[in-house]
Each structure stands twice: as structure tokens, then as C-alpha cells.
């Protein structure tokens, strides 16, 4: 530390500052590392018991089996019926959420005035925040009777249709908010260029903005599907407990009107059930959970990749 006349040494003595800085940094790093620990915890808590399960049921029997019967003899643990149930609900929910969500996003981003947006957005947040058990109750007690009253439609008390419709409504805000963010990120220059060429608002919205925001919109679709796959209470309350695997196309379509069991519903049933902890059936819970985790993880990863790869950079 030399002190020449005319120059100032600004370093000075910071006292314990540097150590403190390091401490803070470590503290915050620890917080962030917790998230990694969580993932590790999830994987371990699913995989370890699942390994025990796979010692009793072979992997191919599980993944490719088309019957799921933990108690009724002959007991068989094929996960495909549960996967089918999950996908069935997902398709139904997507049929509602994707179009409505996308159109909502287009309206909010392109057409809505600030006042309307200020009212609509909080309302959509409410839609997203309603507890899922309430949605399940709605589906069971109000929607099923209404749908059943439509002439020609015959629904069981538990059916996949009501559950997936309500789930679709629940997911709309997810699609709309992420898509809207993607659309807002499209710079106005593109819109103005289109207007300059004589386009109407409709041309601009559908022909310019939506394609430009396509990666974000696709990402929102995938995240919504992932949410639909993982949703539990709506299907537990409203969709029933019959694990079905359809034999043909008509049976497939008819499955909407009958009770269905999804992976999440099976996990709850096995967890709450009369089965003791050591049995194969109980361990199946973890194998199903692992399958579910892998599916949602893959979807989320896909969504990330889509955004990174195809997102247009307008800067």
C-alpha cells in the first residue's frame, strides 16, 4: 500500500466486509442447492421402493401390461391402463384448454384495452388458483348432472368427461398467461410492418404474432399438458377407480363416458388402501409414481428445449 502524493488509495480497510460477503454468498448458494437436494430426494424416494417392486414384477410386465389389478385375482400390475386413463383425461383437458387458452391470450395481447386486461387477468388468476378438490367437487356434483341431462348423453356418476372438462377450465390460465407473455415479446416493429403492408388486425394477430410467438405458445401447451397429467384431486373425486384399457376405437371414445383411473388416482388409492406396507401392491405405488415423474420431467424438458431452440431472438 504505497501512498504517492496526488494519488488516493481507495482500497482502504473494509474490515470484515470481504468475509461477510463470502458468508452471504455461501448462505444463498446453500438455499439454491436445496432445490437440487429436492430432486435427488424425489428420485430416491421413488426409485428405492420401486426397485423392490421390480424384483417382484418384471419391468416389461409393468410397462407393457394392459391390465392393472392389484387385488382381484389374478393380480397383475400393468401400468398401461393407468397411462391410458391419464392420457384420456389429458386429451380431454387439452381439447378445452389449448384453444380457449390460445384465443384468450390473443385477445389479451392484441385486442384488449388496458382496462379490460386489468379486469380479466386477475380473474384468470382466480381460475388458476381455485383449489383442485373444489374443482373435483364441482365436476362430480354439478357438471356431471348437467351433462347427463343432455338428451342422448349417458354418463356414469364417475366419468372421464366431466373431470377432463373441468381440468381444461383449470388449465386455461396457464396456457393463456405463458402464451400472452410470448406474444407480448414479439416486437411491435413486426406488427407495424404488417399493418404497413395493409394487413388487418386479424391478419396481424393470426398471421404474424402467433407464428412469431410459436415456440412460446408450444411451450405453454406442453406445460399445460404436463399439469394435466400430474393433476390428482379432480380425478380422484370425479373420475372413478376403474383401470381400463380399450380394445378398439369405439371403446376408446366410449371411455370418456365411463369411469377411469389415472396414475395419480391409483397412487392415492394404493396409498390410502387396506394394503399393508410390504406388499407388492403397495410398492406398485412407487413404480407408478416413478413413471409419472419421468413423464412430466420429459415433457418439461421438451418444453425447455423447444423454447431455447426455436425462440426467435428479435434483439
Amino acid at each position, binding site marked *: 500500500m504505497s501512498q504517492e502524493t496526488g494519488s488516493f488509495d481507495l482500497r482502504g480497510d473494509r474490515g470484515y466486509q470481504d468475509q461477510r460477503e463470502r458468508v452471504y454468498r455461501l448462505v444463498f448458494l446453500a438455499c439454491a442447492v436445496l432445490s437440487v437436494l429436492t430432486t435427488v430426494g424425489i428420485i430416491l424416494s421413488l426409485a428405492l421402493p420401486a426397485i423392490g417392486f421390480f424384483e417382484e414384477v418384471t419391468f416389461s410386465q409393468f410397462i407393457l401390461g394392459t391390465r392393472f389389478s392389484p387385488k382381484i385375482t389374478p393380480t397383475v400390475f400393468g401400468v398401461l391402463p393407468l397411462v391410458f386413463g391419464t392420457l384420456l383425461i389429458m386429451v380431454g383437458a387439452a381439447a378445452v384448454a389449448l384453444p380457449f387458452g390460445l384465443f384468450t391470450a390473443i385477445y389479451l395481447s392484441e385486442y384488449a384495452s388496458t382496462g379490460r386486461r386489468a379486469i380479466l387477468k386477475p380473474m384468470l388468476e382466480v381460475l388458476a388458483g381455485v*383449489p383442485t378438490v373444489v374443482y373435483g367437487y364441482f365436476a362430480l356434483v354439478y357438471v356431471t348432472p348437467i351433462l347427463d341431462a343432455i338428451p342422448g348423453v349417458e354418463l356414469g356418476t364417475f366419468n372421464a368427461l366431466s373431470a377432463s372438462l373441468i381440468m381444461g*377450465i383449470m388449465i386455461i390460465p396457464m396456457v393463456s398467461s405463458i402464451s400472452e407473455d410470448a406474444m407480448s415479446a414479439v416486437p411491435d416493429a413486426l406488427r407495424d410492418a404488417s399493418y404497413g403492408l395493409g394487413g388487418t388486425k386479424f391478419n396481424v394477430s393470426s398471421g404474424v404474432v402467433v407464428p412469431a410467438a410459436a415456440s412460446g405458445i408450444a411451450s405453454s401447451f406442453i406445460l399445460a399438458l404436463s399439469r394435466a397429467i400430474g393433476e390428482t384431486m379432480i380425478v380422484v373425486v370425479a373420475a372413478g377407480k376403474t383401470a381400463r384399457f380399450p380394445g378398439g376405437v369405439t371403446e376408446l371414445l366410449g371411455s370418456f363416458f365411463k369411469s377411469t383411473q389415472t396414475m395419480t388416482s391409483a397412487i392415492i388409492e394404493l396409498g390410502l388402501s387396506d394394503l399393508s406396507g410390504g406388499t407388492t401392491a403397495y410398492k406398485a405405488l412407487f413404480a407408478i409414481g416413478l413413471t409419472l415423474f419421468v413423464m412430466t420431467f420429459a415433457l418439461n424438458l421438451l418444453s425447455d428445449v423447444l423454447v431455447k431452440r426455436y425462440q426467435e431472438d428479435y434483439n
Partner: protein
Amino acid sequence: MATETGGEQRSEDAGFGRVSRVRGRVFQYLTFGASLFGIVSLAVLLGYVIWDAAGLNTAGPAWYALALATVVAPGAAFVQYARRRPQVKSAAIELFAIIVGGVLTGFALVVVLAVIAGAERWFVYFLTTALPLAAVYLYSRTAEVGWGGLALLGVTIGGPLLGSLLMEPVSAVGAYIGSPAIFYLSVLVPTALLVRSLVDDRLGLGQGNNAALAVLLLPVLAIPVVDTVPLVDRSVWVIFAATLITPVGLVLWKNLSDSRRRAGLVGPLVLILGLGALAIVPDMLNVAGPSPWFDWQYLSSSPSQTAERAGLYPAIIGSVFMIVLVALLTLVLGVGSALYLEEYAPSSGPMGAVTRLIRINISNLAGVPSVVYGILGLAVFANTLGLGFGTVVTAAFTLSLLILPIVIIASREAIRAVPDSMRDASYGMGATRWQTIRNVVMPRAIPGILTGTILALGRAIGETAPLIMIGVATTKFSPPSGLFGKMTAMPMQVYTWASYPSAAFQHGVVAAGVVTLLIVLLTMNSVAVVVRNRIEQGDY
């Protein structure tokens, strides 16, 4: 854009012709309708549930006529009047918001301080933690000392420890002075001080000291009256005096002195009087009114096999207890993680790879199904760490992990929104990273963080699947006895009731439970929206 009005005249021009607007209009209405679809569906379902919960099936036409006369008509008249007068509208909204906010805050404080913690326990922690914290904070603000942060940390850790050590003697003192006095000292006196500074500095109405004195004296004077009301005991009165009466008084004072805004105060008053009349008059006139399932008895009773006696009380307390813990955990851990990822994390090199991994990991965790978190909680917290099945701690930890990714993502957005120019200015002045974070970044990011956290907490309150997996009780008759006591939560209780066979449960008790959950949700969302609006208005 070609205009239509000039179409005829310009037809001789170089053929732009007419552009059909029909498609665009249809598309606009289509998208508008789409955005309303979900909201309208939910509103219809809400209508059904409210009908069931309010027991409106027993209300006769006379009651509806009465409701029209006392509530709907005056309300509509006021709205019509206030439409053209923005000052009146703003005053009415302000009063209404303060009343609702005051009531809810009062309830929250009563539940957390009086029921969950207990007056004596709160007294101990107030003296050892809350009071020193406030003192150190205020002092470090005014005296600009460097050890402020460290002192705060010291008090945060040492205070509760000291409190646990001194629990016996100090709570004996607390028991001696009585719980109304405890709340007077710990809630009302700080409120009075706050009022004094508010009135003088912010509202500029002068007479700050007088206002503070009024806050301190009036509740005491009103005690004889309060004693005659059976439902309200002194502690509750003191708390509500601080959270409801005082802010309402302030708002009234502030608006009464402004002649343009005065009329706005009439609005909420009319509503309250109307609702009061609707509650009292039907009995007097023998009009068939609704037989509501959702009433005070419901909120304050324990579950029961008989539908009429069933109540949500233990579940409400359990949920509140759990959410308070979840809020603390996720705020601390979530903001910490977000700060690391945004401020400290390098973007290159080996640590950079780790950071990227953490980022991807968090966004994937946000999409993991809630039931898987339940399995995690069961395996790690209930089994391995032995925290117990269905206890408050297990539930709190499990749900914290569930919403942590959401809180982290929201916090990161909020922190990222703070412009780099401000950070650079701070660094330019020679501040360290932590100083920059504490003084520049955090104050601006806090509203955004709060908004995201409140929305995430709203989600946590409604989660059922993880609670089922960790073994939360299907029925419990009393609130949890402590951190390690068994609990039940609102959605869990509603789910249990939904399986009871009788119609009274299905369309009565469960409906009331659903209404309770929705009120909680709407409150939290409204608070989040208000906080967010404050950001957008630039109050910060």
C-alpha cells in the same frame, strides 16, 4: 389502413377497394368469448355452490323482495351516483377495502396470536424478539450504524432462544396481567405510535398526538359496552380495535375533511346497514329466510357426524398454522435461492454449469405433480427424519418444497426487473454486492416477490394430495396441539366430508367448506393484485 367511409369516393383511385372487416370482427368476438368462457363457467359453478351454502332453497319470494329493497336497490343507487364522481368512488372503495382488510387482518391476528400461539406465549416472544427487532431496526435506520444487519440477525436468532429459556417466568407475568392487557401492549400501543407518525407525516392532518391518544383511550372506554356482547371478549376487542376500528377511523377522518370525497363514505355504510337489516328483519316479520350452512357456527365448531353441528374450526386453525410456517420457509429459502441465481451466480466456468443445472432443475421441479411431493414428504420427513405422519411440521415442510420452485421463479423475475443501471450506480459508489442487494435491489423487488409468494401460498392452502400421502388425519376434533401435533387442513376436511352419504353433507356442509376455501383464495388473490397494482402505479 384504408378507411371505409372514403370507399365510395376513392373507388376511382388505384383500386385499394374494400377490406372485409367481418372476419376480424368475428375473430375479435371469438377471442373475447374464449377469454370469458372459463370465467363464466366458474361463475356459474360458484353460483350453484353459493346457493347451496347459503341455503337459499328455503328462502321465499318475500325474502328476495326484502333483499332487493334493503341491499340491492340502495347499492345500485349509490353505484349510479358514484359513477360520474371519481372522488366519491375512490373514497367508497377506500373505505370498503379498509373495512374488509381490517376484518380479515383482525381474524388472522386473533387466530395466529390468540389461538395458535396463546397470549402468554406471544407475550414472551414479543418481549424477547419482536420488540428488540423493532427497536434495533428503527435505531439502525436513524443512526446509520454499520452493525445494523448483524444486530437484526442476532436478535432474530437469539430472541426466540431467550424466549424459550425465559418462558416460565415471563409467561407467569403475562398470565398475571391478563391477555387483554398483553394485546393492548403488544398490538394497540404500536398501532397508536404508527397512527401518530402516519397522521403527522403522511396525512398531514396535524394532531398526531391527539389521534394516538384517541387510539389508546377509546378502546378502554368502550370496554363496559364490549363486556355486554357475548361473542366478543376483551382480547378480541383490543385486537380488532387496532386492525379495524383505528384504520376505519383514520379513513373516515381523512375523507370527512374533504368535501368532495365525503359522499363516498355513504356507500359502504348503506351496504352494511342493508345487510344488517336483511339479517334482523326477516325474523321480526316472520319472513321465510335462507337457512345458511355457511355461518358463524360452521366456522367455529368441530366436525361432527350430524350435518347441522359440523364445523370447520380445527381445519381452519390447522391450515393457518401450517401456512404461516410455509410462508416463513419459502420466503427465506426462495428469496435466498433467487438472490443467488440472479446476483451471485457466475455464468461461465464450472460454477456456471452448476448454476445452469440449478436453473433447469428449478423449472422442472415446478412441473412435478403434487402427489409426488407427497411421496417425498412421506419418505423423507415422516419416515426418515421421523417428524411424524400428518403433523404440522411434516405438512409445512412438504408444502414448502412444493411451492418453493414457484416462489423462486417469481422472485427471480422480480429481482431481474430491477434495472442494471441502478446496480451499477450502487457499485460505482463503492458498495459491495450485499449492500447493493440490501439497499437497492431488494426494496424494489419486494413487491414482486410478495405477489408471487402470496399467489403460491394460495395454491398451497388448497392442496390436498400431498397431505393425503403424508397421512394427515381424516377427522380431527381439535386444533393441532403444537408443531409436532397432528393436524387437519381445510381441503382435507372438505374431501373427507364429500364421502359422507347424506345429502345434507353433500349439498350443505361440503358446499359451506367450498365457500370457505374460495373466500380464502379470493382474499389472497386480491391482496396479491393490490400489491401488484402498487408496483405498476410506481409507488415503489
